[in-house]
């Protein structure tokens, strides 16, 4: 089963990391990813929510709004897609990530359908 690991963290804390702190954490995360590269799908780190734009489909034509979809105390800052045997395995992977990246939360969500980039290209 594929799981999406959605990373939530207070972006004001993350943005206050110095470059050295950020680099150090990214290096440790890189090591965790390296250990699990066989089962790892796409991974993304997102820019701060100030760069976000939201298309609200509540009306016709849809409304384009600046900012993230929701104002929350912790923001969606990235995600991993990982192929795991079970929820326990997915949780174990998230725990490993959490051990090197203090603070915040991970939401573990099973993936219903997944379209790797190659599929789109073949459909061309």
């Amino acid at each position, binding site marked *: 089963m594929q799981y999406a690991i959605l990373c939530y963290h207070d972006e004001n804390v993350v943005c206050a990391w110095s470059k050295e702190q950020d680099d150090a954490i990214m290096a440790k995360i890189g090591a965790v990813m390296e250990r699990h590269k066989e089962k790892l799908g796409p991974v993304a780190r997102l820019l*701060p929510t100030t760069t976000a734009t939201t298309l609200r489909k509540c009306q016709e034509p849809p409304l384009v709004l*600046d900012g993230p979809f929701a104002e929350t105390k912790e923001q969606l800052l990235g995600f991993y897609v990982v192929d795991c045997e079970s929820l326990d395995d997915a949780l174990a992977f998230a725990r490993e990530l959490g051990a090197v990246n*203090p603070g915040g939360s991970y939401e573990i969500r099973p993936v219903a359908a997944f379209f790797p980039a190659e599929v789109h290209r073949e459909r061309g």
Partner: protein
Amino acid sequence: MSGDDWIGRVIAAARPKAVAALLRNFRSLDAAEEAFQEAALRALRTWPRNGPPRDAPAWLVMVGRNAGIDNVRKQSRLQPLPPEDLISDLSDVEATEVERIDHADYRDDILRLLFVCSHPDLPVTQQIALALRIVSGMTVKQIARAFLVSEAAMEQRITRAKARIASVDLPFEAPGPVERSERITVVAAMLYLVFNEGYTTRDDDHGARAPLCDEAIRLTRLLLQLFPAEPEIMGLTALMLLQHARAAARIDADGAPVLLEVQDRARWDRRAITEGLALVDKALRHRRPGPYQVQAAIAALHARAPRFADTDWAQIDLLYGTLERMQPSPVVTLNRAVAVSKTRGAADALAMIEPLATPLGGYFYFHGACGAFLKALGRHDEAREAFSRAIALAHTPAEAAYVRNQIETLAEPKGM
């Protein structure tokens, strides 16, 4: 949660929100700051034991407010409030109170706090010092180091600023839309000053000013979180990010500034550039251009060029033309002339800046540009004169050395 000093980081990130809300409560900068300090001390004591609260700023505001009230009670010998050790997560105890500090409140609170620090009665240097002390929470020692003054002098500067603020009527009512937009403009100008203070290098600062750029970016991002649809704040954030992205490349190993022309672009911070470009893009969609957006768009063109030779000078010329109309200034015209020299040639560029000899006569870059244009036109004697004037006005030995190199290229008989 592991990691060193996570509490310190959470407190630092919560500081602007918490101090801003406490300022509304106590209506005095000193009282708000004291209450926050007290709350932070208690957080250091209780969070390791009870775990971090779900809403750190709200916790700090509640505890700070109680501490402030406690002080008043002590003075009037009233019953003390229950200790916050019993409070692990305020939402359990005072849910309604916490809910009341919602996004809209924080928004005007933080804007008010920043606006107070940008008060027009304060000289610019005091505005910057006050913002860094109160909003960012930098220590007096850190700020003094960034400004290259003694700690005692900085302490005095901040005390003076606070005294002046204490004597003026602060606006505590919720601002109307026009007022809010005026405040945003004033605060943006102050934040850009903080950034420029950090961006200006001197030979003797050894990187002490760099934290000012990070702080300015952090606070401007915060302002943009609060007012996500303001294109000028997007522009200002982008401008700072795009300029600061070059930080590692614009100073060499000896601490001397490196000109854009010869910077190693591989050392530019790609993530900061991506964020800056994304914000420029978002801002343009609003079709409400302003000076920060135009300057950000110019910085974006530099950031997009893989090599100096790939720079889109024609577009930069147009953008400086727009900026000239928005904010006419000889310095903007001088910058535009540099772009013109690349597109239409040195003769046109020189003609543009010749009338600026009076306003810019004491400006290093003016004489440097004159020298470069004259050199390109083969007028080497005049170029040498201009370069000599530039050297006399150089701020740093590195600037002087750069121009001296230019003179040396003149000494070579070229094409004769």
